[in-house]
């Protein structure tokens, strides 16, 4: 049996007396899109923060590509191929769109302790950044300052930066939040395309998106995974239907 790409065992997080992640256990296979759903306050973002290394865990283990990464900081996990996007857009507002993406490429290709070459003129970085921006459909805005982008464009840039890290597993925290109908559709199409070469853990409230994209779905309620399975089994799971007051969302 081949070990899964990501395997999480008994992951726990407390904020004071509050148990936010309650021994969470689940696994993500290579090239799987694994959706995490659950009501507000279920602890989805906390879990993403623990998986990515943004927040230390109180107990439990995270195995990524057969390596125990439980105690590695965020940046070390990214270098091993575990990249994330943020629910609240996190970009470099003073840099151009291209520079934002090129930084992520620079981070994994060669040393950043180079002091004399003009980084702006590094063809390899710029070309690859342009390719990533083309893929997400933001190439037309390459020279714009990131801070001046619209909300939807910033979400795309956030995704482009994560992709530019060339991850094996992508943690996406509500990538469609605040997007218009058209932008959402484009992003969903993009994720469908990405699925073929990168595993994804997707936190999302848009159930249409979740059920059209996910290979497997885990449902998080009060910090516990109450159900995990294919979209079809989750859709009819009584526990899940119960957790969501009014189950029309899942219909």
């Amino acid at each position, binding site marked *: 049996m081949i070990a899964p790409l990501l395997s999480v065992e008994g992951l726990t997080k407390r904020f004071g007396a509050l148990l936010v992640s309650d021994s969470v256990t689940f696994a993500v296979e290579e090239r799987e899109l694994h959706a995490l759903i659950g009501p507000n306050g279920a602890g989805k973002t906390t879990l993403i923060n623990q998986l*990515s290394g*943004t927040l230390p865990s109180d107990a439990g283990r995270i195995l990524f590509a057969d390596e125990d990464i439980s105690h590695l*900081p*965020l*940046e*070390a996990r*990214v*270098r091993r191929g575990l*990249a*994330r996007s*943020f629910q609240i857009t*996190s*970009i*470099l*507002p*003073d*840099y*151009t769109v291209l*520079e934002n993406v*090129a*930084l*992520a490429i*620079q*981070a*994994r290709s*060669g*040393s*950043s*302790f*180079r*002091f*004399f*070459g*003009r*980084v*702006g003129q*590094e063809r390899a970085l710029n070309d690859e950044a342009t390719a990533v921006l083309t893929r997400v459909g933001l190439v037309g805005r390459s020279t714009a*300052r990131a*801070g001046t982008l619209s909300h939807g464009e910033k979400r795309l840039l956030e995704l482009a*930066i*994560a992709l*530019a*890290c060339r991850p094996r597993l992508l943690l996406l925290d509500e990538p469609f939040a605040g997007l218009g109908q058209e932008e959402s559709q484009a992003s969903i199409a993009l994720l469908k395309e990405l699925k073929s070469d990168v595993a994804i853990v997707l936190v999302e409230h848009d159930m249409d998106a979740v059920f059209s994209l996910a290979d497997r779905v885990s449902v998080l309620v009060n910090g516990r995974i109450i159900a995990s399975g294919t979209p079809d089994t989750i859709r009819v799971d009584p526990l899940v239907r119960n957790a969501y007051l009014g189950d029309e969302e899942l219909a």
Partner: protein
Amino acid sequence: MTGGTAAAANSSRAWRHPAVWLFAAFLALPIPAHFGANAYILSFATHAVALGLAALSLDLMLGIGALASFGHAAYLGIGAYSVAILSDMGHDDLLVQIPVAIAVASVFAGITGFVSLRASGVYYIMSTLAFGQMLYFLAQSLSAYGGDDGVTLAARSRLAGSHLLASDLGLYYVTLAALIAAYVLLDRIVGSRFGRVLGAVRQNPMRVRAVGLDPFRYRLLASILAGSLCAVAGVLLANQSEFVSPAFMTWQRSGELLVMVVLGGMGRLWGAVLGAICFLTLEEVLPGLTDNWKMVLGALLILAALGRGSRLSQLFKGVGR
């Protein structure tokens, strides 16, 4: 707040123009000073250029890396005491003094940075201040070098065996050459891979971590680079004043360096140099107008901080953009 200067620096060369003007003015300055036979102007200009170099080095930390170090004058002290102590030991050549000053500054910046940079925000500011003060007291205890009173240098340093620095004009041009070299170096660094990471750390450290880079290392190296360049400024400043004392590294001096960088407009390098010139000119002119010039200066600083649009560089906003 620094409004895209790093991005502009990376992508365009045009913004350099103010720097070219500035340095051209410095190069030409001795000509009128010569005809006016005014040694005073030359001495003031040397002082200003040396402190301009100190402010420039601080801008790498503050303007590019958002590290508000309140202990930068310590490096002026390291440079100055390197001159005093090495000359006393018979090593009076800049080719010895500058490397030693840089080495000591690097070690001090490395150790204190290692501690301070783990802390953030107000803790960082206060701990840099305290480490600077620590060095100040160390200098004060050096009774062999005059303790609190300091020590007068027997002679200016030599340069590769020559007595170039013995003439005021020679010292001025050597100091100016150091400033221009440092400027060119930092300009390259800001536009390099390292500079891009450092600028990114200023804007959003979490984003830098999320692409797989550890902000700490870049901040630490920026601190070491800045400290080293400032130590060179200290070496030159000691030669200009021919006197070395703990007063080189008071925390008030560190505060003045910050003021210079902020007034000149952070993150554009030449702004720091301009800020130094303007601040020192103000310090030179105001006492002629009133005995209580420090009240005027203090009030000006308060107003500058309260009103955001008051930076000198705002005047040059259109230039090179």
